[in-house]
């Protein structure tokens, strides 16, 4: 495998900015990288020959993300566990990120590649905004992410798939919207709620029963935390709230004012409320 060259920073003839920096037109950072230094792009690196990755190299996987809408915007939450095979690789990984001021992205799949993709996506949106002097529409952002997921198809076929979940506040339509993706870059708008990752089946079941799209943000946050709890209950790769260590899901709210992360103390309160309610239900049923 060829060694990855060092990133080409300004250092062209006599230190002047390289010619690719001066090409007019492109407002996309990914396109610029593609012409300047493709090796920096996640999907453009030469793949090692041979099939899937050896099992002993199993890299950490990020798991369950849930997102749901409420009248003023959208809530996204992710658990904190990364797994490598049957072992827990990390207890405090964060999988929900702000993409820009009015959108967020949650990741499931191979953690290293997913985090790199999110970083590139963040720069992509900011770069467009700075070059063009205008913010991309929410559909435009969703389509850019779709292109990035598609660029990762080669790695996905070797078992290093990344499946993001994208949500944001549509400033034109004045509502929260959720987009899901498949490994080929297919983009699907979801109605009301969605979940991705290994625990998504269980989380989606919970969301179906609990999600009431007309209720306020507090209930939406509680529903997201409860859905993650249900996913952790049945999926070994999803972490629940760790009351001993004080590790709780990352919960983000995106509304007209922008992206906000719900304070950890507030999430802890909500998580404890969910657990207390379940304990009470259990006691009511009597000893089994």
């Amino acid at each position, binding site marked *: 495998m060829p060694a990855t060259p060092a*990133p080409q920073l300004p250092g062209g003839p006599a230190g002047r900015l390289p010619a690719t920096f001066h090409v007019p037109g492109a407002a996309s950072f990914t396109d610029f990288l593609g012409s300047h230094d493709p090796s920096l792009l996640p999907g453009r690196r030469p793949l090692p020959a041979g099939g899937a990755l050896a099992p002993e190299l199993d890299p950490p996987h990020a798991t369950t993300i849930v997102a749901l809408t409420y009248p003023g915007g959208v809530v996204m939450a992710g658990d904190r566990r990364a797994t490598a095979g049957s072992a827990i690789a990390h207890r405090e990984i964060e999988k929900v990120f702000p993409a820009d001021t009015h959108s967020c992205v949650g990741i499931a799949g191979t953690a290293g590649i997913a985090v790199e993709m999110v970083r590139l996506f963040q720069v992509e949106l900011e770069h467009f905004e700075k070059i063009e002097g205008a913010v991309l529409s929410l559909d435009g952002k969703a389509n850019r992410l779709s292109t990035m997921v598609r660029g990762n198809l080669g790695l996905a076929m070797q078992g290093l798939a990344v499946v993001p979940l994208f949500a944001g506040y549509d400033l034109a339509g004045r509502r929260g919207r959720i987009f899901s993706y498949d490994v080929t870059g297919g983009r699907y708008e979801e109605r009301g709620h969605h979940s991705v990752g290994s625990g998504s089946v269980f989380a989606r079941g919970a969301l179906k029963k609990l999600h009431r799209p007309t209720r306020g943000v507090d209930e939406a946050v509680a529903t997201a935390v409860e859905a993650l709890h249900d996913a952790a209950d049945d999926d070994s790769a999803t972490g629940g709230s760790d009351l001993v260590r004080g590790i709780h899901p990352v919960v983000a709210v995106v509304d007209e004012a922008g992206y906000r992360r719900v304070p950890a103390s507030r999430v802890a309160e909500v998580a404890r409320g969910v657990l207390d309610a379940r304990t009470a239900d259990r006691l009511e049923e009597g000893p089994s």
Partner: protein
Amino acid sequence: MTQQFYVSPEQVMRDRADFARKGIARGRSVVVLCFDAGIALVAENPSRALHKVSEIYDRIAFAAVGKYNEFENLRVAGVRYADLRGYSYDRADVTARGLANAYAQTLGSVFTTESKPLEVEILVAEVGAAEEDDQIYRLTYDGSVADERGAVVVGGAADALAGVLAEGWRPGLRLADALALARRVLATDPADPAAGPRRDLPGASLEVAVLERGLPRRSFRRVQGELLERLLDADDPTVDAPRTPDLLAPAEAPGHPGLPADTPASPSGEGSGPG
């Protein structure tokens, strides 16, 4: 067979410098000055779409005078430089000094090797943690760099206007006072700077932006519309732009808005078990 006349290198350079200077002198000036809560960039520019002042990175802004297509090209190159560097290393590793160096090399190299020098003059500003840490670099058409302190004006009549600016500027200005000073400088007739402002510059003819001090991420804000009018109005009590709430800050930071307060009162659904 034609024989080329010998022209001394000094003459060639002088001609090129004169050419560039004439091009720059046709444009209107730009003022960049530090105030207590950041750096203000003020240009006389009636256009809402073609900017003379723009964002490069988290704490770095760009202001230019001269030929629009030439400085726009440099601005885009600067954004690409900054984003590439921030993506390859870290956001903290993008500095105004590095960008100013890259610009200086580019301008200098074009000046000496290409048929026509760039008719631009550029300011690169970086807001620091305190007013002493603010950096302003001034780059001229031949690639020379000057490290400016406090306040600087560029453009055709910069030499004449620099005195007016230096006289009025002092550390710790409020934003309204800084903008008033910048407007006074831009409205002064360079032929007779002692006579004071000769023209009336309404807020709509100014392009104003600030780099806000103390934000962890993007600190470039355009100041326009009603807020700009209120800041420029000497009778209006507004002297500062409202602080931008830092939406991307760690949620535990003091003053973080947390959840929106205006949500319908509900029992938070905490008591409800699974369906």
